[in-house]
């Protein structure tokens, strides 16, 4: 469904992605983990053309595109089949929860309002936010905003959803509600590429894990194998520091 080959990206001469490749099959939940600054966000942003990658190519839905040479029209077409969930939610501040969900349908896809609202309500129900349909983002908690953002992503019936650390801006007690929604999506067979620091999510929900460091993929493996038998020394070191940090967070 999605294959990325040798994507590269520099910011002002500093390479951030050097030759990253990865594959996401239909129905996969792929977790991308790695230390801060390793280029995870940049990777997702390049895949949705929020940043322009310098090199490499991507096959999406059977069509191959060379980064840096993708026509505007193709970008629009690919974006219609993808959705993005941001770390900071980025709900439209001047729109209600329901309007946030229907905006992409009514405005970008010309779906009639009544049908869009029907879809919108279904999606809000799915994330448990139907009763707050008329609330503005400023009236919602972080966890609620992120759930609305997930409903917005679902509404356009994407073939893949990119998540960039969807829970890391949330208070610990609010991450659970968002992760539960994501787990449900995974169970329903949604294809997802998830940058996360939630090791329990990576271990229990994703079926593949990609470990990135300094703009390269150090190790990519099925989730169970990645956690139980990491091959690379750097992966083991990462998992150890992670364990240590998680312990420290606990007390």
């Amino acid at each position: 469904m999605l294959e990325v080959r040798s994507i590269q990206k520099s910011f002002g001469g500093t390479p951030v992605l050097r030759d990253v490749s990865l594959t996401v099959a239909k129905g996969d939940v792929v977790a991308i983990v790695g230390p801060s600054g390793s280029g995870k966000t940049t990777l997702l942003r390049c895949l949705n053309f929020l940043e322009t990658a310098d090199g490499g190519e991507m096959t999406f839905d059977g069509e191959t595109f060379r980064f840096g040479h993708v026509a505007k029209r193709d970008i629009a077409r690919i974006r219609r089949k993808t959705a993005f969930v941001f770390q900071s939610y980025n709900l439209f501040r001047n729109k209600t929860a329901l309007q946030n969900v229907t905006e992409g349908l009514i405005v970008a896809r010309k779906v009639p309002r009544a049908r869009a609202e029907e879809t919108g309500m279904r999606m809000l129900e799915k994330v448990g936010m139907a009763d707050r349909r008329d609330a503005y983002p400023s009236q919602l908690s972080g966890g609620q905003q992120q759930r609305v953002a997930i409903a917005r992503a679902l509404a356009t019936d994407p073939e893949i959803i990119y998540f960039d650390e969807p829970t890391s801006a949330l208070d610990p007690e609010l991450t659970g509600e968002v992760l539960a929604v994501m787990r449900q999506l995974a169970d329903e067979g949604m294809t997802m590429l998830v940058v996360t620091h939630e090791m329990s999510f990576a271990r229990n929900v994703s079926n593949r894990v990609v470990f990135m460091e300094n703009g390269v993929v150090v190790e990519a493996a099925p989730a169970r194998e990645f956690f139980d038998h990491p091959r690379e020394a750097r992966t083991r070191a990462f998992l150890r520091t992670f364990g240590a940090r998680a312990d420290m967070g606990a007390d």
Partner: protein
Amino acid sequence: MNERLWELLTDSFWQILIPGLTMTIPLTVISFALAMVIAVVVALFQFANIQGLKQVARFYIWVIRGTPLLVQLFLVFYGLPDIGIVFDPFPAAVIVFSINEDAYCAETMRAALEAVPVGQIEAGRCVGMSCLQIMRRIVLPQAFRTAFPPLSNSLIAMVKDTSLASNITVTEMLMTTRQIISRTYETLPLYCVVGVIYLLFSTVLTKLQRVGEKRLSSYGAQKE
């Protein structure tokens, strides 16, 4: 206070209020509406970083904000006829006030546009909206919300600034006041009357601003 003076004051109150309603308010409303339209365009040129147009916008704002309004009025009304461009007083005032106000409103709008987080635009792109759709439905409404209080202040300032138009023979409130004074010699009371009328206008606008802000904040954006 004697009866004659009291009668003069009430009479002149209405005499001055009439040009207020027929001149000051139309001059303000027309000029401000024109100013807002151009201001949004000028602000968007800068926001969208369209080279060339952006420099023109910066130059325009630099000149207009750096020169007195009165000089601009004199230049257009008394100066331009020297090169064959003649305006009636009212159109001349509208041109100068809208161009002048525009420079200030454009700066307000630019700041308000820049205050919209880039994540709002990115979210719009991700749900498949075009640049134009994002501007119209997401960025501009939020920018207007931010810009509403400073724009209201500009509007209130402008009502008072229209008194300068008396200098280019527009018979607005101040001009009318002066005419009454030249007949009656009641200088102090009559300037007080016109001052009170300006105060009334400003008060009404301030009230409207409150109402507007309340309605906008009920849409929640940028509160908290």
